């Protein structure tokens, strides 16, 4: 968000998506909604240092954005109905108890941005731009395209929403169960984009914020809660993931004292309330086992192995099978791990995968064959996708030689 003033930035975090979502509902015009919300922030940056921060900063921003929208639409001689509805958008302080049948505009916005009739990358880009207010130039950087290209993609997505009449609505009943995984997948993609080596942590922060928003808006749904917990647990290690030279550290080499204990505690508390485990809950429980253990050795590997067993049963996936082999290797010995690894690799899906080779190397080392393990670590290094990964693997090989 383009705000230099700290009070504006703080108010904008909550107010921006509310304003955009409300203006889209009333006007149906995505670009107008974004422009007016941005204008309101700019006005606040100008006025608040002079006039002081208003008592209800969010309400001030909403009123300013609404008035701007009214001005623009009056000039465009839009239907009176829209102007009347706009006039009713005033203070948006939500009622203390949110009524169940009143759908928050922000949730409509989330489901529309993440509609499957839009291209997957467009869903992520539109979510970042419209809900988080991330400038188009920054969204472009995330996808490694030019700003002009990203502007075109966003325009195309908004045009499709209008032309194909993608509804501004939260699906109900069976349709909700079908659509929710798609919404969560967008957040997950955003998080991994921000969290991956070479990614930008700011986008991981946005993903955490979005997951918190979706969880707050759908408190009864277990998977958004689980996704928030999963993000918090991964994110809790952000300060400990790299060494002084920026190289990625595996869990056993991280300083656990630098993990964010408040984030871990919040995630564990969320997981304690979840009764039915879906895929994200299983992944979050695995991450929680890691996050709450004092060391690799004292980690509850049997629990982790059981979670991977459940995940593998849910959805056969080579990466899950690989991690399952790792977990069984710790829980039940290297031979058990190597056995599962061989089965995971049988169909060739993991051919050329550096993690598969590194896993075999690690299990082989722990099985008591350092020479073979060192050769395997070197083979994994040759397949590595990034320089820090390659160096970390070569280091493991050197330690064994």
């Amino acid at each position, binding site marked *: 968000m383009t705000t230099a003033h700290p009070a504006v930035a703080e108010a904008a975090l909550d107010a921006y998506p509310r304003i955009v979502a409300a203006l889209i509902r009333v006007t149906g015009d995505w670009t107008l909604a974004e422009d007016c919300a941005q204008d309101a922030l700019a006005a606040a940056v100008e006025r608040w240092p002079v006039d002081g921060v208003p008592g209800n900063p969010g309400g001030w921003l909403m009123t300013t954005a609404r008035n701007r929208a009214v001005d623009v639409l009056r000039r465009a001689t839009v239907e009176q109905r829209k102007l009347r509805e706009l006039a009713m958008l005033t203070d948006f302080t939500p009622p203390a108890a949110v009524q169940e049948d009143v759908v928050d505009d922000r949730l409509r916005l989330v489901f529309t941005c993440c509609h499957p009739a839009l291209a997957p990358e467009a869903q992520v880009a539109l979510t970042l731009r419209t809900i988080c207010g991330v400038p188009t130039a920054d969204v472009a950087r995330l996808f490694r395209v030019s700003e002009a290209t990203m502007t075109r993609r966003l325009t195309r997505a908004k045009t499709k929403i209008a*032309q194909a*009449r*993608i509804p501004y609505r939260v699906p109900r009943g069976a349709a909700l169960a079908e659509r929710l995984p798609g919404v969560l997948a967008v957040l997950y993609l955003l998080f991994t984009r921000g969290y991956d080596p070479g990614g930008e942590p700011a986008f991981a922060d946005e993903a955490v914020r979005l997951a918190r928003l979706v969880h707050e808006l759908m408190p009864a749904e277990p998977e958004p809660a689980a996704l928030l917990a999963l993000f918090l647990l991964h994110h809790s290690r952000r300060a400990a993931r790299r060494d002084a030279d920026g190289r990625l550290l595996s869990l056993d080499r991280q300083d656990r004292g630098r993990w964010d204990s408040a984030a871990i505690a919040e995630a564990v508390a969320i997981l304690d309330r979840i009764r039915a485990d879906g895929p994200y809950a299983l992944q979050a429980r695995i991450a929680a086992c890691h996050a709450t253990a004092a060391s690799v050795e004292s980690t509850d590997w049997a629990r982790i192995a059981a979670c991977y067993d459940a995940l593998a049963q849910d959805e056969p996936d080579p990466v899950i099978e690989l991690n399952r082999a790792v977990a069984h290797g710790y829980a039940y010995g290297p031979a058990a791990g190597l056995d599962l690894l061989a089965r995971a690799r049988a169909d060739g899906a993991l051919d050329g995968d550096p993690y598969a080779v590194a896993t075999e190397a690690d299990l082989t080392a722990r099985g008591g064959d350092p020479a073979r393990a060192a050769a395997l670590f070197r083979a994994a290094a040759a397949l590595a996708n990034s320089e820090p990964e390659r160096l970390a693997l070569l280091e493991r090989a050197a330690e064994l030689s």
Partner: protein
Amino acid sequence: MKYMMLVCTDLEPDTDKENEPDIDVWVAENDAAGRRVFGNQLAPVSAATTVRVRNGRLLVTDGPFAETREVIVGFDLLECADLDEAIEVARAHPMARGGRLELRPLADFEQ
């Protein structure tokens, strides 16, 4: 809102034959609900003729406009509130499994 639903074949149809929808039921239901304005199956591609005019000259050729292995075999003009409703109508069509359906809104020059 009107959507043209183009019914196409697909090289990889669904292999699950359970609870296959019946096209007559689909037509009857959607006609009764006013969601299907008009539609028909098309004669095979072997009966297709393509017409072009270039530099004032008429060019008539045998066959469809694009030689692909996936072909349009029918169409339905739908009247739906929004895309989600059109998707629900399309998913219940037998060719959603046996082939694929493309939903194209009719161009709206009012917008």
